[in-house]
């Protein structure tokens, strides 16, 4: 588990110079470079990020959640997310959870388990319930991302006007 502070912006998650590509393999080595240059070397597949308020603030670059996911992060738990990052994470299938109490209890080195289906976060044996997603957003997550939702919505609507 890797813990970060408040207002972690997209420029430190993935700096602008790497935006010319959306290839996950090229973005992953630079994930969180601006706040911890060694992050991509330290991170192990399945690790989690815990962060204070407003994780992912700043630019609309979807490269940010792509880089986080490609670096091997299995879930980001934060007190709150910046709204564009929140949408982007849902859209590409990066699991995220809003759970302020869990963030307060999490320390670097804590043993953490999360169950994204039930919304439970367990830290050193203590359980916390994350804020539930609205039904509509939960459905997008369940479908595995936004584009599957788009195809279903088009079927509902008939053809585009």
């Amino acid at each position, binding site marked *: 588990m890797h813990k970060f502070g*408040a*207002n972690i*912006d997209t*420029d*430190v998650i993935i*700096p*602008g*110079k790497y*935006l*010319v*590509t*959306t290839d996950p393999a090229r973005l992953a080595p630079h994930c969180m*470079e*601006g*706040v911890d*240059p060694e992050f991509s070397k330290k991170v192990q597949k399945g690790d989690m990020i815990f962060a204070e*308020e*407003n994780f992912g*603030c*700043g*630019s*609309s*670059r*979807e490269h940010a959640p792509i880089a986080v996911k490609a670096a091997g992060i299995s879930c980001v738990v934060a007190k*709150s997310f*910046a*709204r*564009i990052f929140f*949408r*982007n994470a849902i*859209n*590409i299938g990066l699991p995220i959870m809003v759970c302020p109490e869990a963030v307060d209890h999490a320390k670097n080195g804590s043993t953490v388990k999360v169950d994204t289906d039930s919304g439970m976060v367990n830290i050193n044996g203590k359980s916390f319930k994350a804020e539930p997603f*609205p039904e*509509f*957003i939960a459905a997008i997550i369940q479908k595995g*991302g*936004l*584009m599957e*939702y*788009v*195809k279903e*919505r*088009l079927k509902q*609507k008939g*053809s*585009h*006007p």
Partner: protein
Amino acid sequence: MGMTMTEKIIAAHAGLEEVKPGQLVNAKVDIIMAHDITGPPAFKALRNNDLVDQIDPKKIVLVLDHVVPPKDIDSTMNCMAVRQFAQEKNIDHFYDIGQGGIAHNVLPQEGLVAPGDLAVGGDSHTCTYGALGCFATGMGHTDIAAAMALGEVWLRVPESLKFTYNGKVGRYVTGKDLILHTIGKITVNGANYKAMEFVGSAIKSLPMEQRFTMTNMVIEASGKNGVMPVDNVTKDYVKRRVDKEYEVYESDEDAKFEKAYDFNVSDVPPLVAKPYSPDNVGSVEEVKGVKVDQVFIGSCTNGWLGDLRQAAAIMKGEKIAKGIRLIVIPATMQIYRQALKEGIIDVFIDAGGVVAPSTCGPCPGLHQGVMGPNEVGVFTTNRNFRGRTGHPEAKIYLTNPYTAAATAIMGEITDPRSI
């Protein structure tokens, strides 16, 4: 219960009589913008899901702005992908290199966005257009692909915050200072998920360009969108550009605002956001004397003609200080041409600066003036996060164009009122 401007625009586009904060709606979009960074992956998402034929080309605006002219093969291929998509899908509103400029300045300039519209863009500073009295917000490229395929987006109706500015805007103080003042007060997390409505006599006194500078930086408070009421200044601006009927919305007197802030702008001096956050705001006076390596005047925030005029008014007949670099980038090619006619470009070149073609360039650290380790910059841009403009140890101070120009002449951060 009355509704705010933002609520009314969303309701109208969702086909609903009324909406409330927190409600999730599907809203029709009038305009969808993408550029050379967000366009190519959006097109890929459309192609991979067999959705390319769903798009309505009239709603789409494509602008090459982030890395133009391209600096390497990757950025060239991004431009090629946008150009090819525009040709294939007959997208009229495609602005190639040399034809447009920075998207957030091109769309208002060309009348592609109007009061009452609902616009989304694959760029966080899409919120700029809200100064026209429309709803505009930024999204990632998958959301943009979805909006292109569906002609609608899902939105959570935001709570609204009301910001009232009264008093007289001081000399060498601009819309940039008013928005920095605001972000300094409410922090970079102060408007997350929320709409920011800007009203008051001081807003009415601002020209359209400085209003755009304010709504441009709504995202720096993590706001979803910013709006300003439509007045004669707005109407005069769109009259010469927009050739369609548009709707004017205003907040009801009993509209519900989650919070209201009142500012007397008479006391606001030229301001600066210090490294490494747009909410680390202080007066220019407080940091005067800090030695500077590079001044950049430009970006979607402050690359307007009025901004270049302000900088030129300070720099006319002057030389930049020894050891400092001045980079000026007019936000659009139309602004560039007008600045040429007015002799403004000469002022910058005579002073020892360089004027580059319209692009986002150094603001997000892409090209045309990337900052090195421990270098100090005074930028008229919108973000000074660590590493944004280049090396993580570079330090950027965000200011208005007057301060940037005064700093270029003196070689250190300088209050424009002092020269």
